[in-house]
């Protein structure tokens, strides 16, 4: 059996079960939409500053709001993985030819699909608030793809590893605030020009989220900046490769 087949079966399992756990959907979308509205209103005057790239602050904020949806949202995969450990279903799956990798990836891909759609809801709200997407529908899809893939390889892999290691949903939930650090330590809310602290600028430059955000914002505000898009995919690939050895090591810890 090809390893992609169990991954697909397990992805499908999760997709079918989403509506059975309405709390996940019900509580994950509204807070981001509310945050989008509140932050948009709070910082709207920023758009009047010289050099700000758009007249509509929601346009500037929308890519960050997409990341605000996808990055914390992907941690649900890890919580579900840890829950499968706790109710011992994961061990039942491990007695089949499916690998730990398939089980983990199946979960991440299903949640990725969910977050892709939820991120789309954020963009729809932005459009409703007068924002425009410079690259149109195709650019919006690319923006959502970048946001979702980045969430999977960063916070998704990090929290899934934590689930493999601790087998405890509470431990996974404890790292949720880190997701917000990834986003806040970027130009999510204002441009680099407006940030006075040199230290903060250096941190922003070192934060991989910033490079993904730049590509997404380019798609939103200006057009296809293939250099920025290429950098974003390189960041995603690099982080994926970085997480691989830890993931392999934690795979092994599953077998006691």
């Amino acid at each position, binding site marked *: *059996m090809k390893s992609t087949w*169990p991954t697909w*079966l397990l992805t499908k*399992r999760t997709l*079918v*079960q989403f509506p*059975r*756990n309405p709390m996940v959907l019900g509580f994950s979308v509204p807070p981001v939409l509310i945050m989008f509205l509140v932050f948009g209103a709070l910082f709207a005057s920023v758009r009047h500053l010289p050099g700000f790239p758009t007249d509509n602050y929601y346009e500037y904020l929308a890519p960050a709001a997409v990341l605000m949806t996808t990055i914390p949202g992907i941690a649900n995969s890890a919580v579900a993985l840890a829950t*499968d450990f706790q*109710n*011992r*279903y*994961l*061990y*039942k*799956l*491990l*007695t*089949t*030819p*499916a*690998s730990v990798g398939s089980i983990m990836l199946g979960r991440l891909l299903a949640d990725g699909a969910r977050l892709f759609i939820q991120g789309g809801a954020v963009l729809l709200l932005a459009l409703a608030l007068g924002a425009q997407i410079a690259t149109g529908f195709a650019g919006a899809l690319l923006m959502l793809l970048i946001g979702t893939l980045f969430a999977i390889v960063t916070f998704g892999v990090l929290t899934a590893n934590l689930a493999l290691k601790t087998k405890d949903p509470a431990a996974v939930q404890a790292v949720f605030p880190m997701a917000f650090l990834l986003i806040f330590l970027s130009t999510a809310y204002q441009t680099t020009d407006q940030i006075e602290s040199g230290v903060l600028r250096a941190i922003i430059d070192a934060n991989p989220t910033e490079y993904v955000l730049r590509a997404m914002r380019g798609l939103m505000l200006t057009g296809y900046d293939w250099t920025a898009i290429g950098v974003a995919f390189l960041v995603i690939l690099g982080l994926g490769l970085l997480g691989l050895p830890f993931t392999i090591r934690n795979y092994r810890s599953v*077998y*006691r």
Partner: protein
Amino acid sequence: MQTTTSSGLAPRRQPEARLIELLSSDLPRRSARSGRGPDRLGGPDAIVAEGLGKRYPNGIEAVRGISLRVGTGEIYGVLGPNGAGKSTTIGILGTLVRPTSGRAAVAGFDVVAAPKDVRRNIGFAMQEVGLDELATGRELLVLQGRLHGLSRREAARRADLLLELVGLESEANERIAGYSGGMKRRVDLASALIHLPPILFLDEPTEGLDPRARTAIWETLERLNAVLDATVLLTTHYMAEAERLCARIGIIDRGLIVAEGTPAELKGAVGGPNATLEDVYLRVTGRGFAAEETLPAELTANNGREAA
């Protein structure tokens, strides 16, 4: 030929009969779909363990050199007190626990070197049921079958049959979260059977079941063994279960097999025709390793004597 009822309808055949029909069909069920050949350690035996040991990272040595052989088609029972090493042993054989010493082969495949090949050939019902509570019983079985390579149609057909067999046909489309403990145990066992594995590992399979459900499980296992020639390794605390099902029994204590033989041999060894398996169990485990001295040499495992 089937007879008809007064209503003119053919009577519904028992699920057991249909299971037998299913098992007798030419479905591919024993093939080890791997390019690698079986491990020679396996030989003609379905399960072979040689000097298996497991020391957990916390220093606990749960298994201290267990050797056993289970022939194809044999039902082998493992008895022992809580914490004796039964679940660790069955976990190693089922590829969920890595041994720290010794080696084992299941269906001819080394459990460490070729775990996927082992998994293709086994069904495993664990001591604590492992279920996805958001799924329905039917969905759980179908997914399990699909992960074992069955087509959608075949997985669905077998799921319906097995759910009927374990008496859950009317709850098949209900979520497992709403099942009682006994129902969960039965659907868990059914999920271990969906791919009709030639080797079954059952860790206390009837724990917590009422007598009727327990008897139904016993009958199912006997049929599977008879029709499929399935090899079964089960752990249990129920002497009646071991006595009814098992051709041979190994008693594990403190990580070692301290006695092994047929139920008759074990009972004969502790004296008299009136001896029960419980007498054997209490004598062997109640006296620790010294008890081995009171049993005939042919019934005490070599590994047990070495460790003692």
